[in-house]
C-alpha cells in the first residue's frame, strides 16, 4: 500500500486504487481471507491503524471517517475479545455480522461500479453529435387571451382608478383666515355702514360646518384688521351679532 504523491491535488488517498474506510476495510478483510467474525479483529485494527499512520496526506473528512471506523473496530474488538457477558458476546457477533454484510454489499457496489466504468461511456469512449441541430421552432407570437384574466384586469383597473381618487387630497373647502382677510380687504371699502360679520362670508357655503369655520376665520381676520386700524368692530351685547365697518373720520370709539 502506498499513498499516491499526485493525491495532493484532490487530497484523495489512494491505496492501490482504494479510497475510504469501507474500501480499506474490505481490502483488509479480504487479505485475511477468513470469515470476518473469526478473524483477529486486533490484527485488522492494527493493519488499519498502520495504514492510517502511513498515510501522510489524508483528506480531513476522510481521516474523520477513518477515525470513526477505527473506533468502531476497537469497540468490536473489545466485545469479541473481552466478552464480559453473554449478551455482549452476542452483540459483538451481531455487530461483526452486520459489518460483514456491509462489506459484502460494498463489494457488490464496487463490482457494479467497475462494470459500469468498463462500458463505453458517452463522452469518454464514444461521442455523440457535437453540434446538434434543433428542428424545433418556437412560436411565441400567439397571445393567450382568456376571458377570466381579461375581466379581472378590467375590474382591477377600475378599482385602482376609483381608489386613487378616493385617496387624493381633498380640495380645501374650508374658508381660511387668509381667504377672509383677502375678502374683507376687498369688501370693506365698499361698505358705508356697520355690517354684520355674516355679510362678509363667501356665498358658496352650504354645509353648516364649513359655514361655522368660515365665520370664525372671518372673525379672526376682522380682529387682525381692527388691530391694524383698518376696521372697527362692535358688539351690542354678549353673543349678539358682531358689527364691522371701515375705520372712518368720525371717532365714535365704543368697540
Amino acid at each position, binding site marked *: 500500500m502506498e499513498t499516491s504523491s499526485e493525491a495532493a491535488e484532490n487530497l484523495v488517498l489512494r491505496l492501490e486504487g482504494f479510497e475510504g474506510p469501507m474500501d480499506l476495510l474490505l481490502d483488509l478483510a479480504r487479505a485475511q481471507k477468513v470469515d470476518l467474525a473469526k478473524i483477529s479483529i486486533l490484527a485488522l485494527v492494527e493493519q488499519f491503524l498502520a495504514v492510517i499512520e502511513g498515510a501522510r496526506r489524508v483528506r480531513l473528512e476522510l481521516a474523520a471517517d477513518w477515525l470513526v471506523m477505527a473506533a468502531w473496530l476497537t469497540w468490536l474488538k473489545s466485545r469479541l475479545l473481552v466478552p464480559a457477558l453473554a449478551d455482549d458476546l452476542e452483540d459483538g457477533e451481531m455487530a461483526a455480522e452486520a459489518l460483514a454484510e456491509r462489506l459484502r454489499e460494498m463489494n457488490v457496489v464496487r463490482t457494479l461500479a467497475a462494470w459500469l466504468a468498463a462500458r463505453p461511456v458517452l463522452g469518454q469512449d464514444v461521442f455523440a453529435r457535437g*453540434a446538434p441541430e434543433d428542428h424545433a421552432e*418556437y412560436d411565441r407570437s400567439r397571445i393567450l387571451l382568456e376571458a377570466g384574466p381579461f375581466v379581472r384586469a378590467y375590474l382591477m383597473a377600475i*378599482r385602482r382608478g376609483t381608489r386613487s381618487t378616493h385617496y387624493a387630497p381633498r380640495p380645501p373647502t374650508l374658508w381660511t383666515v387668509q381667504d377672509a382677510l383677502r375678502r374683507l380687504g376687498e369688501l370693506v371699502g365698499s361698505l358705508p355702514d356697520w355690517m354684520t360679520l355674516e355679510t362678509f362670508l363667501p356665498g358658496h357655503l352650504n354645509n353648516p360646518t364649513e359655514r361655522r369655520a368660515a365665520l370664525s376665520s372671518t372673525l379672526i381676520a376682522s380682529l387682525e384688521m381692527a388691530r391694524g386700524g383698518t376696521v372697527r368692530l362692535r358688539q351690542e351685547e354678549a353673543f349678539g351679532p358682531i358689527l364691522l365697518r371701515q375705520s372712518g373720520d368720525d371717532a365714535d370709539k365704543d368697540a
Partner: protein
Amino acid sequence: MSDEPEEKAPPPPRDPDDDALRLAEALIFSSAEPVSPRSLARVLPDDVDADAVLAALRLRYAGRGVELVDAGNGVMFRTALDLAPRLRRVIEVPRRLPRVAMETLAIVAYHQPVTRPEIEHIRGTALSQQTLDLLLELDLIAPKGRREGPGRPTLWGTTPAFLAHFGLKDLRELPRREDLLLETAPPKPSPEAIPADLSTPDAPNDDAG
C-alpha cells in the same frame, strides 16, 4: 484497421482508405465546431491527405439525409436542406399579456372609443408608450379617428383580431359592465357584491405575464 501510423519509409500520399474516412466521419460528427483540414490532419496518419479524405467523405454523404458542408474554414455535418422543413416541429408557446397591457386592453374594450388621457384617468396611473405599442403590435387595438377638441387626441378602439382572440363575433358579446360592476353607483365597491370568481382586486395578479 491499424491504430498506429505506419512508421516505415514510403511517404507518397495514400488514397484515403476506409480507416481514414471512419476517423474523419467520427471526428466531424462529434466536434462541436467545424473541423478544419488542419485539425483533421492531426489525427490522420501522416501519409494521408486530409483534403482528399474530406472530398471522399463529402462524396459518401452526397444525397443522404445528412451532408458534409463547408463552414468557416472547415466542414461540418448538416441536415440536408430538403429535409429540414419536414423535420421542423413548430412548438407554440403562447404568451400572456403583461398585467398593465391586459388592463389597458380591457379599458379600451369597455370604453371605446377612448383617448389615452381617459385610459390613464380610469386606471389612475400613467400609460406607458411601451404598453400602447405592444397592443398595437399585436393588433389588439387600433386608432379610431380623433376626438374633436383641444389637441384632437387619438381615439382608440379594439380590432377584429381582438374579437377573434376571444372567439367573439361582436363587442356586445363581452360580459356586460353591469354584470361586472354590480354597484354601478359611486365608488366604494363592496367586495361581497362581486361574484366570487371575479372579486380579487388585491389578489396577486395571476394574469400577468
